[in-house]
């Protein structure tokens, strides 16, 4: 069969197979859907732990508040970027969107560690407590990442590994934000290192596994 004929035949076949499809909602709307799941979990944690502990820590160490805001904004930006990268034709520059909030998150956490003065209301974390942080971030990131991968499999990410890195960043940042609600101590170097390790683990695992799950079919 000559090639124009081959294309015509295929177009004819695809036309015969055509059924109406439900259009994918805009990336920001899909990101909002995922973020509302995070918000529901946050509401649950707030009901359980109360808001006073978090506010007390924030007033005595404002950089913790900035780190928390940075983490929340990183989660929002990375989720939005991931959903945008899931649509063919959207710019890859979306991947830069989470960078400024991530810098705020990392920078403010770092400042918290470098502070020599530690407020009396908070105490520095011991090794068991920082392990708890790692477990918390990783265990919340797994379902949040799985949810994002599942949502993005309906899309068509042409850069699967980059998209998976955004998924990892979004879920790790969201988990770190949730951790703020029940974090019982100030950010010390050990704690920050554990957070960095947890975030790196989540992003790395997503890049390795998520990238494969999102490969164009």
């Amino acid at each position, binding site marked *: 069969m000559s*090639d124009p004929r*081959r*294309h*015509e*035949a*295929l*177009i*004819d*076949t*695809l*036309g*015969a*197979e*055509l*059924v*109406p*499809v*439900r*259009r*994918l909602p*805009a990336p920001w709307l899909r990101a909002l859907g995922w973020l509302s799941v995070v918000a529901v979990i946050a509401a649950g944690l707030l009901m359980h732990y109360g808001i006073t502990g978090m506010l007390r820590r924030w007033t005595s160490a404002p950089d913790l508040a900035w780190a928390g805001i940075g983490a929340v904004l990183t989660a929002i930006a990375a989720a939005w970027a991931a959903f945008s990268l*899931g*649509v*063919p*034709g959207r710019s890859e520059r979306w991947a830069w969107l989470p960078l400024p909030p991530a810098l705020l998150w990392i920078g403010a956490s770092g400042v918290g560690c470098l502070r020599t003065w530690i407020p009396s209301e908070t105490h520095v974390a011991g090794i068991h407590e920082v392990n708890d942080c790692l477990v918390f971030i990783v265990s919340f990131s797994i379902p949040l990442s799985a949810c994002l991968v599942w949502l993005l499999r*309906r*899309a*068509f990410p*042409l850069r699967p590994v980059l998209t998976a890195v955004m998924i990892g960043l979004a879920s790790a940042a969201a988990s770190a934000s949730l951790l703020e609600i029940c974090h019982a101590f100030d950010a010390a170097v050990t704690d920050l290192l554990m957070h960095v390790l947890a975030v790196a683990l989540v992003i790395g695992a997503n890049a390795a596994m998520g990238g494969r799950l999102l490969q*164009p*079919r």
Partner: protein
Amino acid sequence: MSLSLTAGGMMVLDDGLSLGLQLRAILSAEPTIRANEEADQRRAALMAAAQAGDRRAYERVLADSVGLIRAVARRQGVAPDAVDDVVQETLLTVHRVRHTYDPSRSYDAWLAAIAARRAIDALRSHGRRDRRELHDEYALETHPDRDDATRETEREQSAQQLRDAIATLPPGQREAVEQLALKERSLAEAAQHTGRNAGALKVNLHRALKALRNRIHGEP
């Protein structure tokens, strides 16, 4: 002095001329750009109708897309004999992911991104095949003709390999291969025999052939 002034004057004149030429180029390109934008908007509207199930709009937009896909494939460096494969793969992908198109945005940009991806896939798979295959001259020097018995065995082996590959296909695809390729039934006969519609059989056959090609060439 007068020479330098004249030269300066010439340069100004040259600059003026080149600016004029650039301006003319921009002005003459403008209708083309506008025409491209209009064509893009027309395709966007057709694809939006196709998403709602309009078959005629769908076939028109797909037919309109072939030229664009070819251009993208060529730009990516796909060999001329492989461009049509990229067109086919892109059309199939467009069909599968048509729900990801947002009609408020450029159709051409959406299609070009998918076509570029499929072109890169084609380049990669060709690269893999080229590395695996020997150049003819080298093959001729190191592997002289074998006797007929060996060739016969090889033929049997590849037939067996094909039969095994067919056996691993999903039921729908296997059925299409058996009906259309092995039993050489017409589409209408096969459709009557299997109770499936002709379109589904054709798509299944296409997918099966692709899977078999990949299986036999050892690609994922």
